[in-house]
């Protein structure tokens, strides 16, 4: 327990808050890498996932590629890419590694979201005369949004956890404390860094959990975004009888 106490003390030491290697700056870097990689992952994976989900084609290929991407060891990939791109391009190499990590989850969320939409609803939309694009944008995308955000959520967490590696190629982030801690055998710093990463992950997870809830369209599974006077009316016996016709 003393180690934990020391780690906490390390986090709240004046040096961490104001010194030359402040926590705020490292959290900023860490979040920046995560968000950039998440955005790039989404730019790649959402269109592809929507295409797969809407057409029902290419799912096997996507699943196996995503599985392969997940299996790539991130540290090894980072090392190779940094050597290939040159040390000056380390940010690019790191982003590529994090994107490789993020794409499979976002992809799965995107196509699973589309596939989960009631086929009857899609069929009716088509029979009414919606174009394929209108079906995707007005029906499938909004109804599949919660699952897409679920995919972004797990991608964000994986990237956040792996962004520790940025420190290994001199890019900072919260990993710098762990890396320094290992090198200098300063366990309070190492554990303090780890605690910060866990805390950041929990915060990010909570934010996405909230987004996921907000993304459930009003009218779906009995929930409405805003409390509606109509909904309360629907529950009274009088309107239930009147409504039976």
């Amino acid at each position: 327990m003393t180690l934990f106490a020391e780690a906490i003390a390390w986090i709240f030491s004046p040096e961490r808050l104001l010194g030359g290697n402040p926590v705020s700056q490292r959290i900023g870097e860490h979040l920046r890498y995560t968000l950039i990689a998440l955005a790039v992952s989404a730019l790649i994976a959402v269109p592809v996932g929507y295409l797969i989900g809407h057409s029902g084609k290419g799912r096997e290929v996507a699943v196996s590629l995503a599985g392969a991407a997940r299996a790539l060891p991130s540290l090894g990939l980072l090392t190779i890419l940094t050597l290939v791109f040159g040390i000056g391009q380390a940010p690019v190499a790191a982003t590529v590694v994090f994107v490789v990590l993020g794409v499979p989850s976002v992809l799965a969320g995107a196509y699973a979201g589309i596939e989960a939409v009631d086929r009857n609803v899609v069929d009716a939309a088509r029979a009414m005369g919606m174009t394929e694009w209108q079906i995707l944008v007005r029906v499938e995308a909004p109804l599949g949004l919660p699952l897409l955000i679920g995919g972004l959520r797990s991608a964000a967490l994986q990237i956040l956890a792996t962004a520790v590696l940025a420190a290994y190629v001199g890019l900072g982030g919260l990993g710098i404390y762990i890396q320094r801690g290992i090198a200098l055998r300063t366990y309070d710093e190492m554990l303090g860094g780890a605690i910060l990463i866990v805390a950041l992950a929990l915060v990010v997870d909570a934010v996405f959990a909230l987004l996921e809830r907000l993304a459930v369209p009003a009218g779906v599974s009995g929930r409405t975004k805003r409390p509606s006077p109509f909904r309360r009316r629907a529950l009274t016996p009088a309107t239930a009888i009147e409504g039976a016709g």
Partner: protein
Amino acid sequence: MIEFRSVTKRFPDGTSAVSNLDLVIPAHQTTVLVGSSGCGKTTILRMINRMVDATSGTIEIDGDDVATLEPVRLRRRIGYVMQNTGLLPHRRVLENIVTVPRLNGMPKAEATELGLRLMDTVGLDRGLARRYPSQLSGGQQQRVGVARGLAVDPNILLMDEPFGAVDPIVRAELQTELMRLQVTLGKTVVFVTHDIDEAFLLGDQVVILQQHAVVAQRGTPGEILAHPASGFVSDFIGAERGKRALRIVETNGSRVVVDADGRPAGVLVDGKNGS
């Protein structure tokens, strides 16, 4: 008028849903396609708005071959009502009803006015306009489905077992409502059901289908009841059973009509006021 000329539909897996169908569906009448599940009746319906494309043969609407028409534009001028309503769960009742007019660029205010009028037409309280489909009863949802089908004032209304998923009392209400609507609207309605009673109730013309959408008999309910064309038809309509096989029994000088089980169905009166 909708005309099928030697239409065949084979699905990619080799099953043949419709083979060599010739059928005329007259305008401004209700034609009911009736048959057991898997007989291809829904496939026939869906070929009219090109949700399914025929493998061979032609389907014409007022002389235009549907194969030459652009599917999206074709579908936007044909109303479609389906069994599980297919309402958009994330859109309110009113938005659901005017989906197609809005896609066609109708201004919002005008669409709202139209939607509310359609709610009146199908007997829905305007107070339900801002609810979501999940907040309605099955019967109400189906009325929304009908209102949506009527939204572009189509000449043709396709109805695929629209009342199949509601309870018998609500179904009877919806059937009555549809007949009332049809008197004023005079649409070309193509209605699919597996319920022969529903077919006889709603159909000006009834088409009884066997497997692979072979027409077993086509005619008015009266013609079919009076002269079933085959054993299949008389079996399907239950001509020799239950409440259809009525006979007259003399009791104390008055004539009582009884069904196959001997239960009285009514008395026979002089035919003048009958219809």
